[in-house]
């Protein structure tokens, strides 16, 4: 097969194989990532979600994802890897700091919905949890380590 034909085909294969590996081992949704798993499973963005809990001095609340963080939250829901969860948590902490609300901890949960084979009844399952600890400093919200 000529290189001009082989190159795009090889690229497709490499990306699709990597996508399968990420989907199996890193909870990447089969719908995304270039592996052609769309319309094959209910494990996709519409049935995944992210919840964010913010803790600070004398407060602990579940945060509604603001529009400015919606893309980051969608990325984290579809591929709940550490670096994307950390970026979301950092974004939340930075936003809280902008509004003058000290944060000591940001907890990000990623969950997905499963449907029973016969009854189709739906249940939520937690996929990943990420906790970002930080000092209650308003000025330097991204200094704390995540785990």
């Amino acid at each position, binding site marked *: 097969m000529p290189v001009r*034909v082989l190159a795009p*085909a090889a*690229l497709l294969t490499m990306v699709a194989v990597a996508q399968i590996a990420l989907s199996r081992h890193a909870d990447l949704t089969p719908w*995304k*990532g270039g592996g052609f798993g769309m319309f094959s499973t*209910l494990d996709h963005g*519409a049935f995944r979600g992210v919840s964010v809990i913010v803790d600070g001095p004398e407060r602990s609340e579940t945060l509604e994802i603001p529009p400015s963080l919606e893309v980051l939250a969608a990325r984290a829901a579809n591929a709940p890897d550490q670096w994307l969860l950390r970026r979301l948590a950092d974004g939340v902490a930075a936003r809280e700091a902008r509004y003058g609300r000290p944060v000591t901890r940001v907890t990000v949960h990623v969950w997905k919905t499963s449907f029973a084979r016969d009854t189709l009844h739906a249940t*939520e399952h*937690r996929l990943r949890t990420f906790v970002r600890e930080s000092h209650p400093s308003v000025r330097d919200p991204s200094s704390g380590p995540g785990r």
Partner: protein
Amino acid sequence: MSLTRPSAILRPVPAVDARRSSWLRAAACGPAVLLPLRLTAIALLLRPTGEWFVRPAILGIAAVMLVWPRALRLPILWLAIALLLGVRIAADWPLADNHIYLLGYWTLAVALALTSASAAGTLAASSRALLALAFAFAVLWKALLAPDFVDGRFFRVTLLTDPRFGDAAMLVGGLTPEQLAADRQALAPLPEGAVMLDPPAVIEPPRFRAFARVATWGVLLIEGLVALAMLLPSTTVVVAARHVSVLAFCLVSYAFAPVAGFGWLLLVMGAAQIRTSGSGLRLLYLVAFLTVLFYAEVPWAALLLDALG
């Protein structure tokens, strides 16, 4: 010309220049290549992709390609689109849909084909390889990797919960609007560990279950046929099967699936495999392309439901 230095003609520089210029030189193309290229440019304009830092450039190049025929045959412009699509995919990974990846591979294949001695032959071979792989991976996911496709859960839940399939669920599946609304409520997820004492049952009339079953196995069958037809060696029957399966897949699937961009791309890649000089098959692909446009822009299922009362 200096007599003390070797002649420029004898130096290897011209070969390098020739290779470089092949990216900047408009390839000689017949209708076998021009139709798929034009349709690709149209598809790029119909469904703009990416954020502000790539979208204007992709749209601009596609527009120039349509008004200036020479640009359509310039490999460098197709390579630029492929690279821009790569940037678009990386920028918000993993949110890009699969057809954006396929569009990236396809535009790269076009760029490479236009630098080759036989653009039509190279493009046809690339199209066949890409379609074979894309459909083979799609079948792999549905048949083996996904836990909820073959048992029918995927279509049962999707037809009930995805608003884009609501009209089809009522029109073909025979659900009433009230049943559909009740089902959507019944399918609302419970938090982890929670159990309802008397959970509401999901209403699935036999006609709906049959629709979900036909969709499940029909999609798997036709995707498998496309993959197989692309993988088998070319004979008259296999070549015909390739066109029939791609056209059938697009005309049936995209009546319901809300991803016209994917349908157009598959049709473009199918059209790139037409090696006969006759225009009948090309016309068929063009009609299919317009039909997918019709599916995307006309709420035909809702209109039909209204008409049926």
